[in-house]
């Protein structure tokens, strides 16, 4: 039997609410790519749920014509876990910011990842608290001057992907708001993965932290400052693709190709490695010493939490298909009073 399903367009995924981000905000681009990705994914609108915390980024669900919940600050992964455990039939996306996910919400992020709940977490990293008007965030660089750090912040920044690896993440990727094709692809990969997909998106907040990712988005500099990961391929970068990353023992170093160094000498990417050490090492490549990696760092199979829960329930139900409530009521020692 074949039914003609109406083919949705990206605009069909937009709600009737006015988008209220600042003009020029990187969030617009992510919204646009998400709508396109959903078209490609092809699930009906009603089977998709967006859950967010609080922050500029977390307004996202309001703009999607799917089910959605704009929850409280930092806790979106926990709402998503409850929802997904009960309704494994739904596609659940978590939209969060660097403050929402890594500051107040760090614990829930960590546990969703280690349990490997089948949800897709997209972290809009603008290295600032946007909604509360510009305090430094856990990803802000040390020394950052903001409203709450007038002579520079002291905190060492977190690297979200390293943290995810520390929690045993099964899918980890990074993309950039303005790399629209790459971003779209990355969202599709995240959606295809079974288990927690964790995607960091470099996002520009043009009001409070304009240019935070300039080095990664400027035409001139980006090819030198970014390295695009491809499974099974050597780590090559540079405008002329003439530079690469090589391992010296366990220490990465930048080398120039040619001059006796060939592609085979380079580090080869393996997103399927059962051990996360390579992915961890790649997540530690940071500006200005190294180009920063984008793409899929890790994509492995691992037991999925909500599947496990439902398997146990199904199994117990199958094994006790005749269990009645009266049996439950009457279990243990009972006696009659006449």
């Amino acid at each position, binding site marked *: 039997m074949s039914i003609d399903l109406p083919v949705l367009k990206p605009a069909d995924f937009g709600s009737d609410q006015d988008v209220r981000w600042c003009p020029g905000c990187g969030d617009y681009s992510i919204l646009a790519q998400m709508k396109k990705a959903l078209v490609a994914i092809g699930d009906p609108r009603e089977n998709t749920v967006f859950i967010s915390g609080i922050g500029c980024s977390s307004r996202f669900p309001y703009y*999607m014509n799917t*089910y959605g919940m704009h*929850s409280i600050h930092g806790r979106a992964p926990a709402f998503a876990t409850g929802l997904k455990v009960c309704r494994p039939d739904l596609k659940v996306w978590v939209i969060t910011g660097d403050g929402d996910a890594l500051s107040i919400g760090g614990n829930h992020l960590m546990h969703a990842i280690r349990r490997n709940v089948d949800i897709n977490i997209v972290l809009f990293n603008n290295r600032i608290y946007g909604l509360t008007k510009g305090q430094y965030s856990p990803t802000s660089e040390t020394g950052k001057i903001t409203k709450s750090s007038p002579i520079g912040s002291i905190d060492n920044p977190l690297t979200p992907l390293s943290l995810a690896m520390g929690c045993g993440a099964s899918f980890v990727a990074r993309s950039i708001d303005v790399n629209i094709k790459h971003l779209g692809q990355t969202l599709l990969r995240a959606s295809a993965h079974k288990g927690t997909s964790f995607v960091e998106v470099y996002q520009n907040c043009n009001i409070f932290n304009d240019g935070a990712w300039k080095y990664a988005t400027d035409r001139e500099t980006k090819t030198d400052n970014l390295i695009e990961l491809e499974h099974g391929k050597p780590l090559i970068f540079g405008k002329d693709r003439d530079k690469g990353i090589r391992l010296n023992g366990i220490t990465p170093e930048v080398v120039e190709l040619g001059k006796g160094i060939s592609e085979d000498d380079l580090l080869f990417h393996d997103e399927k490695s059962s051990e996360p050490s390579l992915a961890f090492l790649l997540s530690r490549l940071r500006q200005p010493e190294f180009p920063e990696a984008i793409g899929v760092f890790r994509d492995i199979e691992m037991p999925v939490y909500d599947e496990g*829960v439902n398997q146990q329930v199904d199994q*117990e139900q199958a094994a*006790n298909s005749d269990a009645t*409530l009266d049996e439950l009521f009457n279990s243990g*020692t009972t006696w009659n009073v006449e």
Partner: protein
Amino acid sequence: MSTTTTPEKVTGATIRFAGDSGDGMQLSGTQLTNTSALAGNDVATFPDYPAEIRAPRGTRAGVSGFQVQIAAEEIFTPGDQLDTLVVMNPAALVTNIEDLKTGGTLVVNEDSFEGKDLRLAKLDESPLDDPGLDEYRVIKIKMTLLTRTAVEELGLSTKLADRCKNFFAMGFVYWLYNRDLQPTLDFIQAKFGGMPDIAEANEKSLKAGFNYGETTEAAISTYQVDQAALPEGRYRNMMGNQALAIGCIAAAKLSDRDLFLGSYPITPASDILHELSKHKKYGVRTFQAEDEIAAVCSTIGAAFAGHMAMTTSSGPGIALKGEAMGLGMILELPMLIINVQRGGPSTGLPTKTEQSDLYQAMFGRNGESPLPVVAPQSPSDCFAMAIDAWRIAATFMCPVIILSDGYIANGAEPWKIPDFDSLEKIEITHPAPREDGDPAFLPYARDENLARPWALPGTKGLEHRIGGLEKAAETGNVSYDPDNHQAMCELRQEKIDRIADFIPPQEVFGPEKGDLLVLSWGGTYGACRTAVTHAQAAGASVAHAQLRYLNPFPSNFEEILNNYDKVLIPELNLGQLKTLIQAKYLIECVGLNKVKGRPFAIVEIEQRIAELTR
């Protein structure tokens, strides 16, 4: 079963086993309870143990006790003063003796009153030498020695042999109260069947204890407690936490859905998690969250999903849930939030009971955030209350708070087992899918109860977004409109207020008008009901009202309050219900407030009634 002494008939007895945390006193008490219930007695229990897993052996801090009242009439509490106290060591003796009635029976394991035992209990002299013991009927038994001898032939290590002591003590008490050994023998087989040596050792010890009584005629008299005249039916013993768990499973099935529990362990609520995690075959999903916040948030997620969702905790954990409970309130999704209260403030007295989280339940959230609050009155009432609470939640689309307490949670009493089919169904409808041309779905439209529709993700055409920002009436879109905000705040309050007409009217036990109304809530029910019964028998003009619905109050409640000259509110806190009632009805109430981590003794309430009605 025969015994040489003719038993003395008594209407009831209160017995406590007290010993070291490692001595198995909880097991002894539970067995005596079950055996007595099977014998047709009414029973009520009160376990009381230290916060440490194994507080240092032999010390006062390490004493664990289990008290049970068995009776030939209907009872409501585990009893005030003890008829019989069994103590396994000096620490247990000195910390429990003051609860023993003058003339009561004190059974002592004589073997553990050596120098070291005394030192651990910080005693210079043996309390057995205290002339004060003369007021009791003291029965000293070399339990350790006798137990070792009883199991000798099995060749167990001394350590293992000594572990059977509690069965010896039990056996002796069974003899004293003419109990049938069989239920406990069955239990031993069921529990230790896999370890035949241990099973046999326990059996032998139990019988040895019983026989010791019979053979030595250690006591002048033994007792017989006849069957209580409980209503006809099939019964089982039920503990409060267990009843909440089973009640919730029933509620889920009555509303034709699966149950989800999001919880983080905490004393004394953890047993609900433990119990529910055993019932996957009934479609129960339990999620042991990373903390209480994740627990309640996952619960909200599950409610959004369309499940019967619930979260359980105790005071400190509920404090952490406050922000998310506010979200649950403004989202208007149905769910249960269960607080098994313990001694506060802060970490407080984790293993002790108290009723001091009523304020928190009513007011522990930011903004105007009203939620219904209900409180079961006894272990078995937890079953009914769970179903009631879910009925309210599903009918009015709101989280409902259930306030239980440690006393109810761990206490046990006979529960009259209902037929599942006899329970009233909980009808829930979800809006149907819509097609493109259909009118727009309004997630914040209202039904006659002011409830909004519960639209489930996955339903075509009902796509909608909910969140914590103020929402426009009907559409639920974010709204900063001033008048809308006022209207929505009032509407959410009004919705909760209207529950007053949904719940049953308040009942009163005793005269419709009179000098005094004793008003109680939660676990103080038993002590209050008993005290009022006694006072009524003594001719006082006093009635008792047990308030099971704390927010909103029942619709006829004000009228009732006005029917009495005085209102006495006994509470295990410094006057929290009193505050609510005075604020709402401007009726001055008399508080009877106890915060000792223990339930009321009946006599404490009797005294106050006497003072107020004299």
